[in-house]
């Protein structure tokens, strides 16, 4: 073997050694920095959405993913009451699809939902190459996601294994009682135009679809009633994408009149998000779709799901208290 070849092999060996060492270090710091519970005190972000981590194993039938439009348009306790289907709204504010995938992966560790219902708005949110890179890295090394926890590390973070204890009675739903009427807009006037899907979103949608298929779940897309962010051109864009991916797409905006959405009273911020009254109506629309699928079971008689009855009581008590 020539000297040059020997040096080349030695350098390759050092490079492999360096990256192995780095991977070990990143794994160790990822363990330290990952929240040890799904509570705010433990450093977990978006505790409403991450409440799903505290749910008993394999008890969620439908996972609702997406941004703020998802958790303001789906009321899991109402769906439980009417159908016995368990549903969790794991949407987060301004969610982009890379984070949707992170949340799906997290949720599927303990749950096996039969349906993933993705609110379509994040599809029109561009993801930067840097965002894609950090998303890819954080799916392997959570330190890239939780690195900012250096500000609040505690002794137990170095030793304890994660144990998620927090559950949310409204199962991810966030209610708003304020009424801010929406001005008249022509957002849903029919057009043949279709807003193009950003390339980064197409990439993530394929990954999300594959993830769902690999885990035996059906992926469906939905659009919540909206007067500011949504329009017919986007509806067309998502319809075409759904067809391409081979999944269902339901748009509540096309059925807004049928559902009975009253833009004078059913929105908390001038047509962007629904308030509780609007959420109740939108949930009926979602419930109709869920029952029409015929793949979701009614668990109301199953004692394994008795905690859902307790959650429903708390939800109804709150509704009565708020008089909404």
């Amino acid at each position: 073997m020539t000297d040059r070849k020997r040096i080349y092999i030695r350098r390759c060996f050092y490079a492999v050694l360096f990256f192995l060492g780095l991977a070990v270090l990143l794994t160790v710091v990822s363990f330290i920095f990952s929240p040890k519970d799904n509570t705010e005190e433990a450093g977990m972000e978006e505790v409403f959405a991450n409440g799903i981590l505290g749910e008993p194993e394999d008890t969620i039938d439908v996972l609702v993913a997406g941004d703020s439009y998802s958790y303001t348009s789906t009321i899991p306790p109402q769906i439980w009451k009417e159908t016995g289907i368990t549903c969790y709204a794991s949407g987060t504010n301004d969610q982009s699809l890379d984070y949707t995938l992170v949340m799906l992966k997290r949720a599927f560790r303990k749950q096996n939902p039969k349906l993933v219902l993705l609110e379509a708005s994040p599809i029109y949110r561009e993801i930067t190459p840097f965002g894609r890179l950090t998303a890819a890295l954080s799916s392997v090394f959570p330190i890239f996601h939780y690195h900012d926890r250096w500000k609040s590390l505690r002794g137990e973070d170095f030793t304890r294994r994660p144990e998620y204890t927090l559950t949310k009675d409204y199962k991810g739903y966030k209610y708003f009682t304020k009424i801010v009427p929406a001005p008249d807009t022509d957002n849903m006037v029919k057009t043949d135009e279709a807003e193009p899907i950003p390339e980064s979103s197409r990439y993530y949608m394929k990954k999300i679809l594959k993830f769902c298929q690999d885990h035996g779940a059906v992926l469906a897309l939905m659009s919540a009633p909206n007067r500011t962010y949504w329009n017919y051109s986007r509806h067309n864009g998502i319809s075409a994408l759904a067809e391409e991916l081979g999944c269902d797409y339901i748009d509540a905006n096309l059925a807004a009149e049928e559902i009975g959405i009253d833009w004078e009273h059913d929105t908390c911020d001038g047509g962007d998000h629904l308030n509780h009254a609007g959420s109740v109506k939108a949930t009926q629309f979602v419930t109709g779709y869920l029952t029409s699928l015929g793949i979701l079971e009614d668990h109301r008689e199953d004692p394994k799901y008795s905690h859902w009855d307790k959650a429903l009581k708390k939800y109804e008590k709150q509704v009565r208290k708020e008089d909404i």
Partner: protein
Amino acid sequence: MKYTPFFSDNLNALLRMLHIPVVLKRPVFAIPIGISFYTMQAASYVLDVYRGKIRADRSLLRIALFMSFFPQIMEGPICRYSDTAAQLWEAPRIRFENLTAGVERILWGLMKKTVVADRLNLLIENVFSGYEAYDGFVIALAAVCYTVQLYMDFSGTMDVVIGTGQIFGITMPENFKRPFFSKTISEFWTRWHITLGTWFKDYLFYPLSVTKPMKKLTSRARKRFGNHYGPLFSGAIALLCVWLCNGLWHGAGWHYIVFGLYHFALILTGSLIAPLSISLAEKLHIRRDHFLYRTLQGIRTFVLVCIGELIFRALSLGQALGMLKKIGTQFTTAVLRDGSLFTMGMDRQDYIIVFVTLVIVLIVGIVQERGVRIREYLAGRNLAVRFAAGYALILFIVIFGAYGLGYLPVNPIYAGF
């Protein structure tokens, strides 16, 4: 393309003032990214050929390669044909030493940008977008933070660019040489954005200085004002042109022009009072090479630079003046006492990590200033030390970088010029 809206707006304002009923159209163009940088690079090639400094290259491919080498497109450095074209054309083989040294430099640059520059962004955005709500102390703090941010962002990006070039075996010109070690504003501009400064010096200042009318003016002024002030008098005209162009190069706005004129005034004043300050120091028996004296000079220069950067960062000249006025008239330290300093986009830990990183950068700067080449020093150490240094730098960026949840992505600042 870049300046048409600015000039048409100002011409329209002038026409209105003169009651001339003519309104010029305000064309707005999409401006290609990095236009200010590669325009300078192309101009330097053409001028060097014109002056006979280099021979015109008959290969269009070689010129295209020189103009479009990807790392430098967005923020420079502004390369000269004679420095980089041949290297690029030769396309040297990637060598292990260059690869590791280049990656180390890229990581160092990423640390400066992600840990400090991007972390300071929220505080700076908050203050500069609504300075009326803050007192003079916070505005002064924001001006200092912006100066630090600009340095860490621009020099950090340059580290990434030059490190990338190094991976490919290309040596690109340095753009920064520890500017905050400068004792005067003149010295500062020989250490900050060096390739822009040398461009203006070579292609504007010197050519203007050696024109016949200027030479005549210099000899007349020399007779009248003596050997120090005479050349300064005529040189001031060339210097004024340089700083007007420097201000305008950064952007089409009056605050950029004032930023240029501000530095012109500082440099000219510095030259004018130099003999006076030397003789004063001698009379007062002050040792000009004393550490304390040099430190005070450094602090003075830093403060002057911060004032300039406040004008530079402000959204308009009116805002810059308003902010400076508040610093002068409403300077209280209330935010330090009531804790509100930690609610403006940075908490206590953010300030600590910025401070720690700046101390690290300062120590490295001092070591480099003494002529130590840190990466070469590291390359001579054993494997364990080199690995430990690499791991420490990577983990520092990963843990303390301002990215992901709770942070907004920040584009390289100079890519906007």
